[in-house]
């Protein structure tokens, strides 16, 4: 057992030479740190201001900082084992902050933690050294664990190349902890204590200048990044002025984008969950961020050099389904979607993106009313055939058909089923005589011109019809109407039909059965809207809920989002097939969806499996149990 008859690991009697040497080393280390950190800081500050950025609401920012930074909630929740290890290292660092300050102060003969002292200061000193020791121990164990993972387990998303720099830093952290803990076993004036002090000091002073040009820059930046996030999930910024077309060149990089680019810790969680990257496509969200960082390093902000080309490829950027798994996962607050969509905006708003399918989609939506390029008269015919009431301002709800609900034969079945549910509930609703695509695909593909046209035209239609509440079967419509249209007006209240039905679940037929139904979380309902329980509640009154291995926040995309449903054949494996196989493997006899795009993607994908389960939207799952006389 050691005791505090000596001032733990703090040799009090440094010679002047040692003090001078120490001071010189501190100055050198700090100088080197600032020499390297300063250009980064300048690049971030030289980037343009973020349009539409508000610090308010501050409360949410503080909470996110507390939860994600201090509590490490995301780090742990999404990768529990390495997450906890990381948290221990992080907390170790926090606990060490005071120790380290004291350590340096001691070197200059002005130490303030005095475990041998009397009264409170002595008590506190003793307490704190033991407190820090506990963290040092867990930190040391954790860093060894992380080292083993990186160098021996080698998960794919950490990249193919081993980062020796990371190994060296792990060694320094380990050394810091060991030299601290070792001091407990020495006496104050012993040469060992002196040696440990110097080793500890040197580890620290070597570590400091390594921070700015390694991924450990996140130690400094990511707390700021998390605090200064754009705000909401996939929050696409407004265009600042007439010369802003999105992320075209360095001059378009904003402070937040640059800050995020430098914050990346290269953990690869984004890549691990990216549907495009998992199916053999070029896109790697981590590389998008690192590409921007390299651009900033080599070229810098406020330049006219295109962002797409050497550092990031247009091909990769247009392979994104905007499922948002990357942004959701990112532990350091990087918002991938505004960046990827920003790069698309840059390419589309300037006409640099040339794609047969994309061009066709844009032309269709410039002229026509829907993304499928079908005559609006077909929608009229469907409404007539189903004898849907037309919205005239007297009904409570406007039932928004959307492109899929209005034109896709399968989507129409969902609308019809949901209409039956509303009839059963006695809800008053009507459909609009005319509606246009909400603009979701063009919004995600970065075509601000067509998106604005569609949003404004629709807002006008809704205002003319005095619509107050909308219910829609398509999570893409819901998202776009509620969030994206805000740039051009005030959209009415809107909810997804799963939320609507869940509110009235007690009035719907309760027929739980053994039928195993696997529910697929649509990205735009789950990650974008946080609706996970409502559809599950509905599934449970008609069958037995089965979960896919990747579910809720970690659900795997169907491949349709981000306008990709309209861009023709994908390269590599089809995302929909990968997900369909996963759903089939659950042994469920029914696949429940809550998005007409997921539905259409899975239709073919499930048919290609050996034992295709039936595919039904939650509205269809409910409607099938309705009494027959309601089926008009």
């Amino acid at each position, binding site marked *: 057992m050691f005791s505090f008859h000596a001032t733990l690991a703090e040799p009090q009697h440094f010679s002047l030479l040692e003090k001078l040497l120490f001071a010189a080393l501190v100055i050198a280390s700090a100088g080197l740190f600032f020499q390297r950190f300063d250009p980064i800081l300048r690049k971030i500050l030289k980037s343009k201001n973020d349009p539409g950025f508000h610090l308010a609401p501050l409360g949410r920012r503080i909470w996110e900082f507390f939860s994600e930074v201090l509590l490490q909630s995301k780090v742990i929740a999404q990768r529990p084992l390495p997450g906890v290890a990381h948290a221990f290292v992080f907390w170790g660092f926090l606990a060490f902050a005071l120790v380290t300050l004291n350590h340096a102060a001691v070197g200059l003969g002005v130490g303030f933690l005095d475990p041998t002292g009397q009264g409170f200061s002595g008590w506190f000193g003793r307490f704190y050294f033991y407190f820090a020791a506990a963290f040092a121990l867990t930190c040391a164990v954790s860093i060894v664990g992380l080292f083993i993972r990186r160098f021996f387990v080698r998960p794919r998303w950490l990249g193919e190349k081993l980062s020796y720099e990371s190994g060296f830093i792990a060694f320094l952290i380990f050394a810091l902890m060991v030299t601290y803990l070792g001091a407990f076993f020495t006496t104050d004036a012993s040469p060992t204590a002196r040696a440990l002090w110097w080793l500890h000091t040197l580890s620290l002073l070597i570590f400091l200048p390594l921070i700015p040009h390694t991924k450990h820059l996140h130690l400094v930046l990511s707390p700021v990044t998390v605090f200064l996030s754009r705000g909401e999930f996939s929050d696409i910024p407004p265009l600042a002025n007439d010369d802003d077309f999105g992320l075209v060149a360095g001059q378009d990089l904003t402070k937040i984008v640059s800050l995020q680019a430098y914050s990346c810790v290269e953990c690869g969680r984004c890549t691990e969950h990216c549907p495009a990257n998992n199916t053999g496509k070029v896109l790697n969200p981590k590389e998008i961020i690192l590409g921007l960082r390299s651009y900033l390093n080599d070229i810098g902000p406020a330049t006219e050099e295109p962002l797409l080309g050497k550092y990031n490829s247009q091909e990769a950027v247009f392979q994104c389904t905007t499922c948002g798994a990357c942004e959701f996962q990112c532990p350091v607050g990087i918002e991938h979607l505004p960046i990827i969509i920003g790069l698309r905006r840059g390419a589309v708003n300037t006409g640099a993106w040339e794609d047969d399918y994309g061009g066709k989609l844009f032309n269709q939506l410039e002229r026509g009313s829907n993304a*499928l390029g*079908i005559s609006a008269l077909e929608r009229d015919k469907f409404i007539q055939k189903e004898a849907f009431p037309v919205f005239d301002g007297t009904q409570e709800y406007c039932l928004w058909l959307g492109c899929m609900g209005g034109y896709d*034969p399968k989507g129409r079945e969902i609308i019809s089923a949901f209409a039956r549910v509303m009839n059963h509930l006695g809800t008053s609703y009507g459909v609009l005589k005319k509606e246009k695509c909400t603009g979701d695909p063009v919004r995600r593909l970065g075509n601000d011109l067509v998106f604005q046209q569609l949003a404004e035209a629709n807002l006008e239609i809704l205002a003319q019809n005095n619509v107050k509440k909308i219910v829609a079967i398509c999570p893409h419509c819901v998202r776009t109407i509620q969030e994206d249209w805000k740039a051009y007006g005030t959209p009415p209240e809107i909810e997804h039909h799963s939320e609507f039905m869940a509110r009235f679940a007690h009035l719907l037929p309760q027929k739980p059965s053994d039928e195993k139904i696997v529910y697929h979380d649509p990205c735009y309902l789950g990650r974008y809207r946080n609706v996970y329980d409502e559809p599950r509640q509905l599934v449970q009154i008609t069958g037995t809920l089965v979960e896919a291995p990747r579910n809720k926040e970690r659900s795997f995309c169907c491949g349709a989002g981000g306008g990709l449903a309209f861009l023709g054949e994908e390269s590599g494996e089809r995302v929909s097939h990968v997900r369909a196989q996963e759903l089939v493997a659950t042994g469920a006899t029914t696949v429940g969806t809550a998005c007409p795009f997921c539905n*259409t993607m899975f239709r*073919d994908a499930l048919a*290609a499996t050996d034992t295709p389960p039936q595919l039904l939207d939650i509205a269809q799952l409910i409607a099938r149990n309705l009494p027959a006389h309601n089926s008009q």
Partner: protein
Amino acid sequence: MSAIFVILEENGGHISRISWEALAAGTALAEQTSLPLHAVVIGSSTEALAAEAAAKQVAAVIRIEHALLNAYTPDGWTSALHQFLTANPATYVIFPHTYQVRDYAPALAARMNQVLIGDVTGIAAGPVFTRQLLQGRLNGSYKHASDGPCFVSVQAGAFRADALAVGSASVTTFAPTIEPSQIRTKPGAPFRASAQTVDLSSAPLIVSVGRGIKEADNLPLVQDLAAALGAELAASRPICDNGWLPMERQVGSSGQTVAPKLYLAVGISGAIQHLVGMKASQCIVAINKDPDAPIFEVADYGIVGDLFEVVPALTEAIKSAK
């Protein structure tokens, strides 16, 4: 003496079917107006064509012949007909509405300070000429309101050529004066898109097959049908996914977008991905055993039945109709 002139075209060495239909339109107009009906053939060597025309019930056949009318050029045809119509005043000049007529008849009419009433689908008393507007969503009634000749072209199929009566008309020749310098365009020989590359987007007729065919071994069934029709073969995505047909034959959102005159969908249920690729077709025929298949929603004609019975029967019916 004023007359009705019907300008006949050649196709494969004979008067084309649509030209006979134009002659039928001329006959109807002749009955209405009691004007003599004359048939006109144009070229560098028109004897055989003139003989064919003279075997119909017409008052006379005119051969407009010149060495420079060897191949069609708008300058040659416009000049020749302009000279002819100047020398032989016409009340009505009737054309078949072909690509060739669309290329020169408006210029010819303009040269005579007239406007062609094109793509006519019916002639009523008056005469009032009916033609489609807004891509078939409206019918418009046109009248000629001038002293000069009235130029009219008639749509394929609008008049029945099989009702033409036989006759034996006299044949005369008109020799226009044409200088080589007048012919400003140099036409090349007609060619087809290369057989190696499948260009569904320019195919006038398409037979498309879907999942209903069940196995690759059944494909010859639809191949025979396509051959009988002279159509290109296409498919929905699952067929191409399975490798039963090459990817370039895929119609739909991830394949090609087509707009043929005829799209015959066999065993295709009509998923939206497929519909968006073919909905612009002029005429859609669906054969499917499921009466609720969405393809019937967009089809002009549908047969609900087993494709393994219907397709061979259709192949036979087409062969015997040709």
